[in-house]
């Protein structure tokens, strides 16, 4: 790591975030001899180290864990990495690409400055010709406004703050949200002996294994993960789709609402209100489940059709469809928190990226970053957002294609913007470590 005096530094590209996509971009820039630094608020793979619950494993099997010129080489390609394994995998990649990472450096502001950018950190200021924002899609946990109306006696925490059942009060738990996070937390908290109510709105149902193959294998084979952002009918919606109900476990078990019902989790509709100590649920649960079943059915139909016309059909197990989601005859519409001894509400209601430090006119009316496949403005790029360039963009294995394409675009930008655009004084130039 280069250590410069406090004050302005200059380099060609600043990459913000030393997670897998920032490091992959660093590897691309080094391979193309572009001087750059990677600014990291904490340490390499920071959110995997500090913002995940203990039992979490990747939703993608080990064979899918790969970065440019770098892949899983262990003995269990069908297994799922634990958090310590993910951290080791990414930290080793940082060494593999020789990324010039400046750890414990928090970005306070990024603004356009002439033809370049000014990047203000808690350590020093930088000037550069391009910025790549690779802080990830999980910066801020979404908390619906009605969370503020919960009674004071009930502890409210986001999935980012949750670590393990032992940190919770012994009473019941309401888990809000039935995507991958919500179903996993509901399952492990229920297994700890607590009463659990799970509020489910729109959700995506997927079997972990279908006809003997992991669902990620099918999604890859069917070309679904490679679908491009400029080829889908409704991109806004595609980017909003919640993460599928999946869990990575050694048993490769499916974790859907039926599995949770079997284990005694109470399934209710989407949370729509908090009123006088009661949480109110939507009466749409039946339709949400019917839709999830229909969509899963269509996906499996597509997998079967793919198998029909492929050589691997004979190697597959026979077609066996999951049972429809069982919905209670009368799902409950309200939960009296005090009376039912619900002491904790966990919001597994998704995330949004944090661009609060980005001072540029690049946001839409709702404050969301505008970008075209990761290109935000001349010289300004983003990585790792949901369906950014492809359906796989937010996954580790999605970084390779995105980094190659955006990196190539970035090289073109550097050719157009003269070096002196950022040089006030040549002595300020900080040597890159590579």
């Amino acid at each position, binding site marked *: 790591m280069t250590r410069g005096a406090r004050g302005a530094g200059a380099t060609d590209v600043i990459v913000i975030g030393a997670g897998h996509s920032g490091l992959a971009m660093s590897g691309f820039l080094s391979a193309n001899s572009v001087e750059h630094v990677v600014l990291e608020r904490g340490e390499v793979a920071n959110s995997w180290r500090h913002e995940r619950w203990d039992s979490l494993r990747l939703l993608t099997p080990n064979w899918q864990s790969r970065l440019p010129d770098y892949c899983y080489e262990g003995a269990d390609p069908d297994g799922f990495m634990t958090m310590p394994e993910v951290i080791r995998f990414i930290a080793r990649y940082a060494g593999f690409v020789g990324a010039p990472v400046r750890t414990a450096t928090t970005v306070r502001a990024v603004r356009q400055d002439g033809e370049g950018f000014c990047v203000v950190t808690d350590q020093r200021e930088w000037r550069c010709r391009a910025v790549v924002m690779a802080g990830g899609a999980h910066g801020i946990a979404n908390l619906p406004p009605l969370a503020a109306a919960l009674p004071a006696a009930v502890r409210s925490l986001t999935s980012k703050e949750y670590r393990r059942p032992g940190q919770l009060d012994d009473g019941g738990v309401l888990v809000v949200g039935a995507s991958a996070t919500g179903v996993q937390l509901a399952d492990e908290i229920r297994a700890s002996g607590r009463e659990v109510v799970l509020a489910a709105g729109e959700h995506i149902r997927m079997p972990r294994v279908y006809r003997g193959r992991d669902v990620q294998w099918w999604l890859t084979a069917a070309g679904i993960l490679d679908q491009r952002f400029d080829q889908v009918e409704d991109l806004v919606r595609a980017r909003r789709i919640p993460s599928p109900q999946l869990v990575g476990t050694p048993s490769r078990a499916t974790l859907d609402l039926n599995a949770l019902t079997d284990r005694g989790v109470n399934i209710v509709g989407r949370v729509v209100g908090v009123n006088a100590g009661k949480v109110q649920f939507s009466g749409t649960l039946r339709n949400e489940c019917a*839709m999830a079943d229909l969509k899963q059915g*269509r996906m499996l139909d597509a997998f079967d059709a793919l198998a029909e016309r492929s050589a691997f059909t004979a190697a597959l197990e026979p077609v066996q469809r999951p049972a429809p989601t069982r919905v209670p005859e009368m799902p409950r519409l309200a939960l009296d928190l005090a009376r039912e001894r619900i002491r904790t509400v966990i919001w597994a209601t998704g995330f949004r990226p944090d661009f609060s430090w980005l001072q540029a006119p690049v946001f839409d009316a709702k404050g969301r970053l505008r970008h075209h496949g990761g290109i935000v403005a001349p010289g300004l790029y983003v990585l790792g957002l949901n369906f950014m360039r492809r359906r796989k963009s937010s996954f580790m294995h999605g970084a390779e294609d995105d980094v190659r394409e955006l990196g190539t675009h970035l090289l073109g930008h550097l050719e157009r913007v003269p070096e002196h655009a950022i040089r006030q004084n040549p002595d300020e130039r900080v040597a890159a470590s590579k």
Partner: protein
Amino acid sequence: MNMTTTVDNGVNVEALLGARQALTDMPEAAQFKWRATCAWVNGTHSRSSVSSFYGLGSEQAHKTEFKYDADHPAIFASEDKGATPVEYVLVGLASCLTAGIAAVAQNRKIQLRSVKATLEAGMDLAGILGIDSEVRNGFSGIKVIFEIDADATREAINALVAQSQRRSAVFDIVTNPTNVSVEVK
């Protein structure tokens, strides 16, 4: 599925999609206000009317003023001059879902031949009569049964009905809480 003939359910999907694009670009034009007035006639009999609404940035009007009599049946010691208010809720839900089915079917190129909805809502009068405070005033549940004849698979029809619920205003109104303010002038 018939792929050669043109699907026509009498819904102008291009106009709807055009409106969606226009209203995305002009969010203020998407702000609508729906209105009704109601006058008491006698007993439980009232007459409501609907004529004006607000949308696309200005006052709008229906072609004619629509009038609706509401009352209660004879077993409630009323004169039965019209449907009960709760039946109007069923009418609203049924017509909203049905309109949605036609629009979604048109968009998905599914020709409809007939769509029939039958609705039934349960209600325990112990609620409104104040007999049991645990019982809610409103419906205990609503059951909607659709019989649909269309050029589509059973699954495509199910998907049609599911999507019409997703996009239905009245379905949202009856399934989710809404703030209601009632004042006296």
